[in-house]
């Protein structure tokens, strides 16, 4: 494989392969940013991969008082799924169990999409007849009485069909500390990119996978070509100095958002350099046959 070098870091001439997904976004507000984030973190828990969780979700960006509908601090949460039905089901149950329940929370549409998804329209029945409907400014809200006052929730949010899931970067480093350092720097940079989320723990995944496996029924199994302990016994992609690999997976509202996020992540890891961070940066793909979206690293370099 051909390689480029930036700031001493090797860049593989390869690409990340990503898929079209359905996505939505909501804005969660609370009396303080701490509690808005708490509701958001709770509702995006166990949402790392559609394979096992039904959806992929994370906080997109924090919003200060001037940027939220009700003038309280908040954050924008994005949720991705493979079908509209899955997305609606996940949205409804996560909203009902995690946001409705969180102290002082309110919830608003975070996306003007091609079709509506129910928010308050499905939760209003919790009000047991005491819910209040309010329509103004071309928007519809539900006010549901709860024990600390009211849960205010917009009736619907938008759905986009042009979302992309599966953008990724692989950081190959001499040891775990350096791999983590590179990945953390990239996560911090990508967090600032609007419309892109990283659904894995802290944005980082250590168990990258390949399609299928030797056991029946396994849709995915360990990416042995990038597992350093198997370097000698499998057809490895790792050179002798690499002892740890970490991956960042990116879902974006649009293909441009994924590209912008990968560009920001690449720049952060390259700026860190090979002595403190990654020796080499790569990306995961399936040969280009499965996913419609290809992000070539050489096009995204700083």
């Amino acid at each position, binding site marked *: 494989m051909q390689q480029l070098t930036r700031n001493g870091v090797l860049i593989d001439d390869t690409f990340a392969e990503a898929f079209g997904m359905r996505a939505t976004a909501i804005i969660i507000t609370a009396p303080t940013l701490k509690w808005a984030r708490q509701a958001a973190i709770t509702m995006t828990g166990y949402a790392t991969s559609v394979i096992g969780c039904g959806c992929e979700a994370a906080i997109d960006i924090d919003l200060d008082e001037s940027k939220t509908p009700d003038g309280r601090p908040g954050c924008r949460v994005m949720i991705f799924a493979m079908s509209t039905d899955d997305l609606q089901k996940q949205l409804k149950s996560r909203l009902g169990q995690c946001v409705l329940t969180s102290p002082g929370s309110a919830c608003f549409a975070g996306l003007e999409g091609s079709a509506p998804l129910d928010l308050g329209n499905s939760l209003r029945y919790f009000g047991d007849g005491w819910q209040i409907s309010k329509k103004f400014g071309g928007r519809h809200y539900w*006010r549901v009485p709860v024990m*600390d006052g009211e849960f205010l929730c917009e009736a619907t949010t938008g759905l986009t069909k042009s979302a992309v899931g599966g953008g990724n970067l692989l950081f190959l480093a001499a040891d775990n500390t350096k791999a983590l350092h590179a990945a953390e720097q990239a996560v911090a940079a990508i967090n600032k990119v609007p419309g892109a989320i990283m659904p894995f723990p802290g944005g980082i995944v250590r168990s990258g996978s390949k399609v299928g496996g030797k056991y029946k029924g396994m849709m995915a199994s360990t990416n042995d070509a990038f597992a350093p302990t198997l370097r000698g016994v499998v057809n490895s992609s790792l050179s002798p100095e690499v002892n740890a690999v970490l991956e960042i997976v990116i879902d974006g509202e649009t293909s441009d958002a994924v590209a912008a996020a990968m560009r920001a992540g690449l720049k952060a890891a390259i700026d860190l350099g090979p002595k403190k961070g990654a020796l080499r940066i790569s990306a995961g793909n399936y040969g280009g046959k499965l996913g419609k979206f290809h992000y070539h690293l050489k096009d995204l370099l700083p």
Partner: protein
Amino acid sequence: MKALTFSLIAEPDQRLDLTPLTPAALTGLTVSQIEKLRLGAGRDGLLVGDVFRLSGKDANNVVIEGGSARFDRIGAGMASGHIRVNGNIGSQAGRKMSGGAVMIEGNTGDHAGSGMSGGRVEIRGNAGNNVGGPVAGELTGMEGGVLIVRGKAGDYVGDRLRRGIIAVLKGCGDYAGYRMIAGTIVVTGRVGAMPGYLMKRGSLLFDRRPEQLSPTFVPCGEPEIAFSGLFDRYLVDENITDRPLLGPRPGRYGGDNAVSGKGEILYRRGR
């Protein structure tokens, strides 16, 4: 293109129904056709040309220069376009309108915005009784849209209001929100007796605690709610009020318990 302007020649000697002077009804008509539109009733009913001098061509923007308390039903039934009136007018301005905007730089008579379902009516002066309310025999009043009275309004503001927003900025008479079905009424300034009398659902939003309330309204505390911040911002963004109305912890009364009791009065505390 200059707005189609109707300049008042002299105060008419009869009540006139200005329903024909909406943008949609005037579009495509020539000046002579417009001058022959009948506004008065009966054998001696006046025509447009008897009352107004016409100028301008843009029928989507209608301006009536000079008002009269005998001008009724301005903008009635309109669905689009703009009407501006410089002067005081009579009753039922914006009656049953579904879209567009009516701006009245003066006072109006009773039943302004009666039964409207969309669009925006703004009255710079005072309004009479039954703002947005139904006329005799109708079951519902205003059903949507925004109705702003920058001055005072009379009694029965928002009678049988079902949806939409009515804002009165310099106080109103008695029985605001009378028999309200749902919707929102904002009043800044003094509110008369018995606001919300027989309201089923909906919200009355005041900038002070109402003084004379029906005993069938009960205090519901003063919890912190996100709705007040959201609605305060809407009012300021839409230039309906120039400052937040309720604040983060408004006081609340529930009522009217003489009927279903699902309505509310929210008010800014401390005044």
